């Protein structure tokens, strides 16, 4: 097939041009900016009637807490939610994008979304970016085939588990799950266990902290319990506020009025409409 001389842009795929530039800059001594990471403890477990997801609410930028109360449990579909650990922008963007694709898919098929669809869309995307999209996800939901819980790693591999943890606080949370998880938990037992696991991450991992968010998904119903537990309330130094007795000394006062120094001269014709 002959092309008529029109320059066709390359289709699809990631353009690695800027990576060469970045390498060159690092060699010259430039420090790359650090990403806003969600240190994070995220967990999920399957209980008798469905899935419970939990997450902490601290977002870190290196050693600084950038957001004390961020939302790490993302909406994917009315019956599917996803917790995200890793680079905050990556988890937000990738869950948003797949949530959008799922909505179009629902219109196209006329059916409710299945967890495995979200899983496949996410892992396809992450794999195609070869791990550069730093998003580690715990995906859970209840669809027509039952409750499902999956973990997705930044490089695109996935696991299907009855209970799962991800993020820097995952070891602390997993120790709680391994000790106390059993099949057929009730809703209250499940929520208690998830909260305990997240708290374990909050108190033992520097990258996690602040509050506990919980999301309970059952057949045909979901409950998003934002700030279910707040084990780190702010205590203020003084409820009366501060009073400064020693005022700042005024040494000198100089007022410069700003006047317009613009002259308007009409030259040429007015522009035609």
């Amino acid at each position, binding site marked *: *097939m*002959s*092309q*008529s001389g029109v320059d066709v842009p390359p289709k699809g795929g990631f353009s690695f041009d800027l990576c060469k530039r970045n390498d060159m800059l690092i060699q010259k001594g430039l420090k790359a900016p650090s990403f806003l990471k969600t240190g994070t403890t995220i967990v999920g477990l399957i209980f008798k009637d469905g899935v419970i997801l939990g997450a902490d609410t601290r977002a870190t930028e290196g050693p600084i807490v950038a957001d004390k109360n961020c939302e790490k449990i993302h909406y994917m579909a009315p019956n599917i939610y996803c917790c995200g650990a890793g680079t905050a922008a990556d988890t937000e963007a990738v869950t*948003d*994008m797949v949530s*959008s694709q799922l*909505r*179009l898919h*629902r*219109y*196209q098929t*006329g*059916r*409710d979304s299945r967890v495995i669809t979200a899983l496949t869309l996410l892992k396809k995307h992450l794999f195609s970016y070869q791990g550069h999209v730093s998003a580690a996800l715990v995906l859970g939901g209840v669809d*027509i085939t039952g409750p499902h819980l999956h973990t997705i790693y930044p490089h695109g591999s996935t696991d299907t588990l009855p209970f799962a943890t991800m993020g820097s606080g995952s070891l602390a949370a997993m120790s709680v799950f391994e000790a106390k998880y059993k099949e057929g938990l009730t809703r209250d037992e499940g929520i208690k266990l998830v909260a305990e696991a997240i708290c374990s991450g909050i108190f033992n991992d520097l990258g996690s902290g602040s509050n506990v968010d919980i999301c309970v998904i059952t057949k045909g119903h979901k409950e998003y319990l934002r700030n279910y537990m707040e084990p780190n309330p702010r205590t203020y130094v003084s409820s009366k506020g501060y009073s400064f007795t020693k005022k700042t000394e005024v040494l000198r006062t100089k007022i410069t009025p700003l006047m317009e120094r613009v002259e308007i001269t009409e030259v040429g014709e007015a522009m035609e409409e």
Partner: protein
Amino acid sequence: MGDSQYSFSLTTFSPSGKLVQIEHALTAVGSGQTSLGIKASNGVVIATEKKLPSILVDEESTVTNVNLMSLLQVQKIQHLTPNIGVVYSGMGPDFRVLVRKSRKQAEQYNRLYKEPIPVTQLVRETATVMQEFTQSGGVRPFGVSLLVAGYDDKGPQLYQVDPSGSYFSWKASAMGKNVSNAKTFLEKRYTEDMELDDAIHTAILTLKEGFEGEISSKNIEIGKIGADKVFRVLTPAEIDDYLAEVE
């Protein structure tokens, strides 16, 4: 659009200044099954004839989500967003393609601005797509006219989009086989302060005017949207109720 060998447009001007392909597309629309829409004070209703080509056509399907699709295989009225619905006259397959594109555009808007797309914007983008197919290489214009019904912050709205890509806002409109009779009927019956239920009755009466054979819930489709901003296709049972009221 268009392969390398067809980089020229098939829609070209005639000496009289008309785009003949678009005229032909409008003829295709005019020979399609009648559809109509009415904008009431508190909502919009769109309706269409649904005559299956033969009694041998298998109507049932296994679709389960009743909110998005009826339980029938062939559904002419479709959702573009939760608060915008659309019906057509003309070629069904062309309609399918347009609905798919429009849904994607609405979703892209939603992704970017985190709010539902206003009706006028979606209509404009759909109309742009239809116009592109009249000025691109190797493609033909769409053989459908659309009636888009929606309810957003500006209230209830009804738009008609033609194969040329032009769109108009209507208080009430009809298209397809019976267009002239239907429009005359609507002109007589339309009132500014009509309510949604009255509009549905009027829509049924208008369809009845030019209907060949017995009108029933199996051979018409009705979609409505009210102040709740949720577009819904009526179930056959609900259509039966309205038909009984009209008798």
